[in-house]
């Protein structure tokens, strides 16, 4: 009897949920339709070139030839600085939740061999993307994403620390992006140019320095976020012998078969 009423009640509440989600769907369809109409009107408002022409016109004074890099690192550099802070905040939040989970088992010979090819390739490609960002698509984020991906691969291949150095060094690498960015900005302000206002003559080199620090910080932050927790403390640190094998970005020397769990 009670189970029957319970079943009936559950059925009724499921029905109500279905009605509710249908209502939400109808309302959102209306919202989508209204937004599409509004978007069409906005497109026809005649703001057309928007900031594009101005951005290209000012490009020669920015120190880079790639307009997107010019927006990210010069016109709107302050946004990019804050966005590096967002990434760092997320990682610090992840670290505050506890230590990292243990890694995966050591990769077998085939995977390890592939990793030893892919990881250096990713690092070299990252460096290339960083440099090319000055005049073609590329830049700190793309390069940092590749470095992060290299860390992910190394962790998947069995290194619990994703190839990252110890905690103290990791912390410095993480803050490098925001720290160099802010200090360059403040330095320019102290010397009279204004916060993040690069003199055109040295803009290229300042931007490159900032981008290099940002690439490292982004790569380390992404890899560390994938590790998913505070780096293991000194007591959990593996023996010196293990550490050599772990910190090497080329696990090629590591050709012992993975221990079966």
């Amino acid at each position: 009897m009670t189970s029957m009423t319970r079943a009936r009640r559950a059925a009724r509440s499921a029905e109500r949920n279905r009605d509710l989600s249908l209502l939400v769907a109808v309302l959102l369809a209306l919202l989508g339709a209204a937004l599409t109409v509004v978007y069409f009107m906005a497109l026809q408002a005649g703001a057309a070139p928007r900031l594009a022409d101005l951005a290209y016109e000012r490009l020669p004074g920015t120190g880079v030839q790639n307009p997107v890099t010019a927006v990210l690192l010069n016109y709107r550099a302050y946004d990019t600085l804050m966005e590096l802070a967002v990434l760092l905040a997320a990682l610090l939040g992840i670290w505050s939740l506890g230590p990292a989970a243990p890694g995966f088992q050591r990769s077998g010979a085939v995977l390890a061999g592939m990793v030893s090819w892919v990881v250096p390739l990713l690092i070299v490609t990252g460096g290339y993307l960083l440099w090319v960002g000055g005049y073609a698509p590329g830049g700190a984020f793309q390069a940092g994403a590749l470095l992060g991906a290299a860390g992910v691969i190394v962790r998947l291949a069995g290194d619990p620390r994703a190839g990252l150095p110890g905690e103290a060094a990791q912390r410095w690498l993480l803050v490098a992006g925001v720290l160099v960015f802010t200090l360059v900005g403040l330095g320019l302000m102290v010397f009279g140019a204004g916060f993040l206002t690069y003199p055109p003559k040295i803009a290229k080199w300042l931007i490159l320095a900032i981008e290099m620090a940002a690439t490292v910080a982004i790569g380390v932050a992404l890899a560390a976020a994938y590790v998913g927790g505070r780096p293991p403390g000194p007591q959990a640190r593996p023996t010196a012998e293990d550490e050599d094998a772990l910190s090497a970005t080329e696990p090629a020397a590591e050709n012992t078969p993975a221990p079966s769990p």
Partner: protein
Amino acid sequence: MLTAQFLYGGAGLVLFALGLWSFLVHEPLLRKIIALNITGAGVFHVLIAIAYRGDVAPPDPVPHALVLTGIVVAVSATALALMLGARLQDAEEEDRRR
């Protein structure tokens, strides 16, 4: 040019509405996080669409840069949300074992 912008950006608005629907209707955390990412991707679509200036003129770099910034922000937020969810799951499992 306007048609391309409208179609691509309109598709972004559809993604926005779909993501919003999924976020409101579905209970599991992972689905909510994916839904939020789709909603965000819809907005990024709109920004990319308005950057397009036809085959002759190069695209407006400003929305492109905004989207790059937005992606990094979205990745950061997703990472934190996933780890909070994992931590919550651990805590719930611990409670159940007790």
